[in-house]
């Protein structure tokens, strides 16, 4: 189960405004009726992309054709809060996003995204604001997230970002999907199990 290390993500970006964007907003529960994750991309942010009463497109940035090819999302505080559903990062990933830069993330969302190989880096508001502004002004601006240097650069902007060590290491070493390593420890798993009365 070899997985490619992720050291850099480069692409154009889109700013999705607001804080506390919860997973119900990212993918409304009614689209979770699925037995595979394929196809979830088209429902990302559905209820804010389409007017719930008329079904018409709203002025949400994801509807702005300038940002059609964006692969990096810029967001606010506590992104991905709410339900633990992995459908949320899956729908963003299937939509085409490769990474997120935000002020902070909900824990479960962060973990799920890392496992998918979609880095979620953390930036300070004062650093993120000019980047958001630059991206809104020029949708073609190329943004690079460098996970080794922990920098995000775009044009003449270069900001420092953070990423918890474990997630950073996992992405850089291509071990963000831990399954192979978990399986390899089978003997230790069984040893731990044998010490637990309720498991017997």
């Amino acid at each position, binding site marked *: *189960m070899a997985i490619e290390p992720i050291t850099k993500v480069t692409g154009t970006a889109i700013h999705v405004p*607001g*804080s*506390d964007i*919860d997973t*119900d*907003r990212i993918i*409304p*529960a*009614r689209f*979770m*009726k*699925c*037995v*595979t*994750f394929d196809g979830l991309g088209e429902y990302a942010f559905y*209820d804010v992309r389409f007017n*719930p*009463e008329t079904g018409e497109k709203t002025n949400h940035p994801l509807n702005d054709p300038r940002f059609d090819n964006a692969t990096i999302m810029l967001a606010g505080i*506590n992104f991905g*809060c*709410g*339900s*633990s*559903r*992995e*459908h949320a990062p*899956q729908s963003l990933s299937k939509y085409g996003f490769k990474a997120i830069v935000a002020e*902070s993330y*909900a*824990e*479960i969302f962060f*973990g*799920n995204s890392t*496992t*998918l190989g979609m880095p979620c880096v953390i930036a300070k508001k004062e650093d993120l604001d000019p980047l958001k502004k630059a991206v809104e002004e020029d949708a073609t601006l190329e943004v690079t997230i460098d996970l080794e240097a922990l920098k995000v650069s775009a044009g003449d902007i270069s900001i420092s970002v953070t990423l*918890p*060590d*474990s997630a950073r*290491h*996992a992405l850089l*070493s291509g*071990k963000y*999907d*831990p*399954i192979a*390593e*978990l*399986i390899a*420890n*089978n003997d*230790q*798993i069984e040893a*731990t*199990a044998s*010490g*637990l*009365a*309720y*498991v017997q």
Partner: protein
Amino acid sequence: MGKTLYQKVWDAHSVGTLSDGRTQLFIGTHLIHEVTSPQAFGMLRDLDLSVKYPQRTFATIDHIVPTENQDQPADPLAAEMIDAIRKNCDDFGVTYFDLKSGKQGIVHVVGPEQGITQPGSTIACGDSHTATHGAFGAIAFGIGTTQVRDVLATQTMAMEKLKVRRIEVTGSLRPGVYAKDVTLHIIRLLGAKGGIGYAYEYAGDTFDHFSMEERMTVCNMAIEGGARCGYVNPDETTFEFLKNRPYSPPADEWDAAVARWKSFASDPDAEYDDVVKIDAADIEPTVTWGISPDHGISISENIPDSADTKNPEEKATIDEALAYMKLPAGTPIKGIPIDVAFMGSCTNGRLSDFREAAKFLKGKKVASNVKAIAVPGSQITAIQCEKEGIDQIFEAAGFEWRAAGCSMCLAMNPDKLIGDQICASSSNRNFKGRQGSPIGRTILMSPVMVAAAAVEGKIADARETFDVPAA
């Protein structure tokens, strides 16, 4: 120095340290439901893996089950999901509490009911409200589907250790104040992000006196406070509850099990990363006014007004919430008309919730403009309510009495708000669109407060509606 329950359970279940520095944690009990498991079984098949400990994996269906007629899935997709979990449990030898078993229900109601949820264990489920099981002194995490795959394949997952915050509530709750108010109060106090990076240990004599169901209500919403899990140390109340349940230890192993369970409780000299103290007498019946569970106020307070704050972020949050909720700033929350009353969910869909609400609903009538539904959390809860005549009290009052499921808590089934209906709800989330309509509005509260709102047709103080004596 003593250890917390969290530390002890963590130590007992640590398999080792992974190369990324995280711990490989053994998950003793894995609960699964129809929404987050089919994709994980799919990944398992893709990787040609099997379920490592099928005897430690338990399944039921709850999210998409229709509550009017359980056997008639609302649409082909719902039917496909039910078929998928049946087939997956069959193929991999997993215990499945099906509709016909008489044991089906919301996974967080079923686990404790069956005695599967036990002190000192680790529990995982692809559902954020897995924290509920912490009421038994278990460390219980909500996990994503890829982690469901990991736990299916290895009975372990990669985890980072949490800090522990002890939340101590002392004293008696005032009449008309319930466990739901305690949990809403804590979230209001510490914020929806306050618990990030923490496990919450709920303690103090208020919790000591709580029933298991009350403890579950509080632990259930640990996640709404940002905590990854919440727990209460196991005690006699816990053991009493577990006695004679189908999956509890049998009589000849009982004493040994209790001794083991007791040993997991936090030591009196355990050290915590943080301690918060709350006086139970300060807690009022609490309701939400906005779109995040920490938008809580007591029933006697006014809806916030962004004009009253100087903090621009707070201003924006209040304005956004009130624009969505279409509620008038600065006016009493009491008296806001409602359209729907929902009694149920894994927060408050248990026997004691229906008993308590029935006590007050007896002889009362739901306001004519309100659609009111009562949805037991499990088939066993439903049957017990029906034995006690609780269903009849609800029906006589004008509630629809439904079959077990998540129902209108998240509306992945036919129970949904329509348009911008406003719902007095005993569930746990008031996010935008949570109850099925993208513009539907939710006001969270205790079951008795839902009953009061249903009767009055508007947000009400249950202590007044039902003449609850002050002390």
